[in-house]
């Protein structure tokens, strides 16, 4: 279609990418297999653990937790909202979705927070990492599914990986921002009293950047929930599958039920993380 007509032949970007991916699958399959095994192990066990408790008991525990962290209103909302999901019959799917989101968010934090801290300490790192983050966020999320499938086949794992790539940037960005926003005079004071870089970070910059870091984590949670439906296309189980199946069958009723369950989950996670931030 876009055959180059002028002096310059079309740059074979697509075939370069393909051979690069081939190269990775051929020589780094051990790495991908290891990642795959670990992620699958954690996620599956989390699903099992959460599914082990009776639905109603778990709902009450979550509601009490929300009451303790935020207030009684959110506790009540948790009770009614999760009760509704259970009543509609999507409890097992909800547990799978929550597990996928939790694992993605925790891995995003483990990778993203240190990168954010590193960025805040060195301008050169910030210069390199910022465009990568832009790329990760603006590339259509569907595109991540292709290498995810190539490297990790189908199921929960490629879903988790694609979700991490898509949802990690806010944690990195807001960690960096939070640390950089700490009042210059406080940094000076900390240096003037002879702090090491580590002491300055742990005693001044990270505690004071915490609200911003928490906001980043909150954003990451919201983005990973929005990835749930897309991840279901590569076979990640959960509420996404419910919605995706409804879309392909043009079944408006189940589609609405699945969507509503996701909205309830999103609101609940958002309020709880924001409440945790305020404390």
């Amino acid at each position, binding site marked *: 279609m876009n055959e180059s007509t002028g002096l310059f032949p079309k740059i074979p970007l697509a075939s370069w990418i393909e051979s690069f991916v081939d190269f990775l699958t051929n020589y780094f399959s051990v790495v991908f297999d290891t990642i795959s095994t670990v992620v699958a192990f954690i996620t599956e066990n989390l699903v099992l653990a959460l599914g082990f408790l009776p639905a109603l008991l778990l709902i009450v525990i979550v509601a009490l937790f929300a009451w303790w962290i935020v207030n009684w209103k959110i506790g009540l909302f948790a009770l009614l909202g999760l009760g509704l999901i259970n009543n509609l019959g999507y409890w097992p799917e909800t547990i799978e979705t929550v597990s996928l989101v939790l694992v993605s968010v925790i891995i995003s934090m483990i990778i993203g927070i240190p990168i954010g801290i590193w960025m805040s300490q060195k301008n050169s790192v910030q210069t390199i990492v910022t465009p990568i983050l832009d790329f990760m966020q603006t590339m259509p999320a569907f595109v991540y599914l292709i290498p995810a499938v190539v490297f990790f086949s189908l199921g929960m794992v490629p879903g988790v990986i694609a979700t991490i790539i898509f949802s990690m940037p806010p944690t990195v960005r807001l960690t960096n921002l939070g640390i950089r926003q700490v*009042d210059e*005079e*406080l940094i*000076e*004071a*900390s*240096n*003037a*009293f*002879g*702090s*090491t870089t580590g*002491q300055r970070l742990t*005693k*001044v910059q990270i*505690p*004071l950047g915490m609200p911003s870091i928490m906001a980043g984590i909150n954003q990451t949670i919201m983005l990973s929930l929005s990835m749930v439906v897309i991840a279901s296309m590569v076979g990640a189980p959960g509420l996404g599958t419910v919605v995706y199946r409804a879309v392909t069958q043009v079944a408006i009723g189940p589609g609405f039920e699945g969507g509503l369950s996701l909205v309830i989950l999103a609101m609940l996670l958002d309020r709880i993380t924001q409440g945790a931030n305020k404390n």
Partner: protein
Amino acid sequence: MSKIKVEGLTKIFGRRPKQAVKYLSEGKSKEEILNLTGMTVGVNQSTFEVEDGEVFVIMGLSGSGKSTLVRMINRLIEPTSGKVWMEDKDITKMNKEELRDLRRKNMSMVFQNFALLPHKTILKNAEYGLEIQGIDTEERERRASEALELVGLGDYLDKSPNELSGGMQQRVGLARALANDPGILLMDEAFSALDPLIRKDMQDELMDLQQRVHKTIIFITHDLDEALRIGDRIALMKDGSIVQVGTAEEILMDPANDYVERFVEDVNLAKVLTAGHVMKRAETVAVDRGAKVTLRLMRENGVSTIYVVDKQQKLLGYVTADQADQAVKAGKGLEEVLETDIPTVHPDTPLSDLFEPMTERKAPLSVVNDSGKLVGIVVRGAVLGALAGNDDVLNGSGGDVADE
């Protein structure tokens, strides 16, 4: 030996600072260098010494380089060239560990906007310097609460900084600096963010505190009144260069150039000069000399009043010529006609506090030192003369003031 010695300390902001340093040594001005190279001279070859236990004020308007200068002393800002000595140690040559050690043990800093950690209590804030040295909890709590006690905040240990007023917050900043027990305090515009009244209190308190702790203090300010109040010596900065170093009196009475002169012309002399500066010698007579001798002395010296003292030169009162004459006629002793209701002031009393006693009484004010000895008198003309900027009335310049 001086505690701190700064030699040719220079800071250039720009990409090729060496070039600018060369231009500076050739005598080019800050402006010429900016035009030639686009680089900014922050501090230009500053040299001064600070004695042990001295309050040394670096004073200049914003942009004069004073904050940069003080930050080069503990190397929060790296000097481009020049040296800073602490006793016999060259701070500019220290490696990272030595520098950290210096900052932890020898030099503490107090900041303009207090720089307290909002997420920690007052006690924890005061502990900060000790905490990062790895001192155990018990000792650092003891030392930090002692320092807080010293600044009068012993009852606020568990409060958080934002529950305290500005003045109190800066006391915490001061306590945090003192808790390390450093020999040197660097105070960067420490009181500039406070209300004028609070600022004055803090200045007084700092001076009280200094009587007890005897630190070497380098104090940065843009406020000349503050500099004159607290500085043992003052360095005046302009465009990155030190234009004059001297005591408050030296700077006021003998400005090094037009800039300093213009700078100090608005100073409220009434607050800087004291009774000691404008007093003149009083004619005295010992009380046991008798009225006759007194009268003769007055005639010889051409005065109409004479001060009567005891053997220890302690002031008893004064007599006028009329009273002495009456005493001679009635055969009374001096002590019987003595006027004892007499206004006295201390040599350190500022001129501003002399106006009131002066308007109440016609008689000159007697200047009496701590042990009650009469050291001089102040007449109205001398006060007015001094306030008008007339150096002749000041002691040490050979002034001769007519009695009124």
